[in-house]
């Protein structure tokens, strides 16, 4: 058994898929895994694959061309999942995909297909949660800053939503778990960048008590519930407690 490994990064994963495929060892004789490899196997040999933009681009292009653009979006979504097994799952899906072409997306009865489908659906769902529940607050002079702690890596899917609605504001969404931020300068495209602990602490300190609308929002939130209909259980079902951590109205 040969195990191809790489970093948890889309470009690296596509490169890893390229090399694993090109090795021609037979799909049954190989596996793909993310680094750090958690439990090493005695009789396997490991090959660590560094990201290579050219190879990654080739894989991306052939998924779009030989399967379909929708399949590519699905693979991309699945690659953002927190699961350690996603890379191997994507590889198995692509084996089917390159064989069956575009119709592979309808073959939800196949475990190999439904696996990748459910990985990306989880990512989509979580992204939607953060469209709803992400909260910005104003950091002087004029930056809207938000912190999130998603299970999956939602930033690349989440940021375009806010680019469309706040194209002319300076804003930052920080994924505290991964120390990555989506940064959007006024009237420009957004970019992803890594964040140091100091930067994060600095932002947190700067926004402390700085935004006058925080207390206005809390007042509104308190006033809008109808006492005679109070229903904490329903509220909890709709808005699980762990999402509330960074929500202004629950702080």
């Amino acid at each position: 058994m040969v195990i191809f490994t790489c970093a948890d990064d889309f470009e690296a994963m596509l490169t890893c898929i390229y090399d694993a495929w090109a090795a021609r060892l037979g799909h049954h004789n190989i596996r793909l895994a993310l680094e750090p490899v958690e439990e090493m196997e005695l009789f396997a040999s490991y090959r660590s694959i560094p990201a290579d933009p050219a190879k990654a681009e080739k894989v991306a292009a052939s998924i779009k061309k030989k399967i379909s653009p929708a399949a590519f979006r699905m693979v991309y979504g699945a690659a953002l999942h927190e699961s350690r097994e996603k890379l191997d799952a994507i590889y198995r899906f692509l084996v089917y995909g390159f064989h069956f072409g575009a119709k592979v997306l309808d073959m939800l009865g196949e475990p190999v297909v439904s696996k990748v489908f459910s990985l990306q659906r989880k990512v989509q769902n979580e992204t939607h949660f953060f469209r709803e529940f992400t909260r910005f607050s104003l950091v002087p002079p004029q930056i809207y800053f938000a912190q999130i702690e998603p299970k999956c890596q939602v930033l690349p899917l989440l940021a375009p939503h806010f680019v469309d609605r706040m194209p002319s504001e300076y804003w930052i969404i920080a994924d505290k778990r991964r120390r990555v931020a989506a940064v959007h300068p006024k009237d420009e495209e957004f970019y992803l960048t890594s964040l140091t602990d100091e930067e994060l602490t600095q932002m947190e300190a700067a926004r402390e008590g700085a935004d006058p609308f925080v207390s206005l929002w809390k007042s509104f939130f308190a006033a809008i519930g109808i006492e005679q209909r109070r229903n904490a259980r329903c509220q909890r079902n709709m808005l699980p407690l762990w999402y509330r951590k960074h929500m202004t109205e629950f702080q």
Partner: protein
Amino acid sequence: MAASVHVCNTLEEKLTILADAAKYDVACTSSGSDRRGKKGSLGNAFSAGICHSFASDGRCISILKILLSNECIYDCKYCLNRRSNDHPRATFTPEEVCTLTVEFYKRNYIEGLFLSSGIVKNPAYTMEQMYRALYLLRTQYHFRGYIHVKTIPGADPEIIERTGYLADRMSTNVELPTREGLETLAPGKTHQKILAPLRQIQSGIGQHRLSQGKSPRLERHQINAHLPGNIFERAQALELEEKSARAMAIMPSSEASFVPAGQSTQMIVGATRENDYQLLMTSQALYQRFDLKRVFYSAYVPLNEDALLPEKDTPVPLLREHRLYQADWLLRYYGFSAEELLSPEKPNFNVLLDPKCDWALRHLEIFPVEVNKASYDLLLKVPGIGVKSAMRIVKARRSGTLDFDGLKRIGVVLKRAKYFITCKGKMMYHIPIEEDFLTRQLTGEDARTTWEMGHPQTYRQLSLFDDMQLVAPPTVEDTKKTLQGQL
């Protein structure tokens, strides 16, 4: 008498008063408009709507729901803002409304604004102020998010029309389904006055749609194309009044659209004696005659002492409200009509069963239904089979005969459906298709949710009823209904 003591409120005090006063309005959605953002502007609109939080009562918070003012020259009995209440009053300036909307929006608290108001001075003045807030919001604050605004009946049609070019959705509350109800509880309001803006906006939407090459009526869910006899099919043709030259001149730009998310209304449930049949027939008529996008129902919360109103400690009729929403759903997506669900002889919903189960038990002659043969619209009549499940069944049976395992695999929930269907001629269990038997099966399964729906604060009491093998009655009043009904 009127407490017109004017205090110089801070913005936060005003917001607290005017959100508190707006909370009984149930228009909470931000759906129906699709609009991309634009450089230099703020906001977009997402046709499925986005919820941003959930209040302590479990209701979704999607938009900044406020009144422009809670001053009012009227004295509607059921309303907290009525003239005769001694109550703190506040009024926003249009600029304050704009500031709150855009600042909240930038923090991702909300999708947009819902603006209603008490009647300050007179209807015309009030509508002017609301228009002013929207106008500033769209033109000076460059806001492209969602806006839902109430019309003020009695305002000048021209200002209502101008407002329609700025809003995504407009609504006028019908409040009470019958003339008598309205006249007793809302002196100063008449159905005629309320229906005038509904008619005007319907006509405006129709005109606008025609000018874009669409049919004047709103597109309904595509499901309805497969449901012969659905209520929208029987809707009257819309007579469009000739658009006057004046009205044409109002249209602010060629890309402006008129109330793209349609109009809605709201009725209060339980403040007057009207029964569910009257409420649902009114809803149906509103969908058909005014092409409303939605009718909302608001369980009456007793706030005022009044001989004409339920006592102050009357429980809020949450279960009844829930049944009305379920029935409303059946009208809009399942091809049912109000007359099929209720009648003058059976004017109220069964508290223990949802309206579809209840209907099915009264039509046992058409069951069981063979899932491999039944038409789409018949599948939709089966309790427990929804729009999605019916669609999946129709798709899946093209490539083979379905059995019960097959149904489960494609995600059909059999909890209720199993009593009403066969697969290849066989039912899942050998049970009688018999009304009393099925009623007991179905109410047993639903008792818990039904009880919790009616008693959000006291649902723990349920275990007591479970131990004693009683089916918990949601309210005393409802028990009486049930006893007189079919149980």
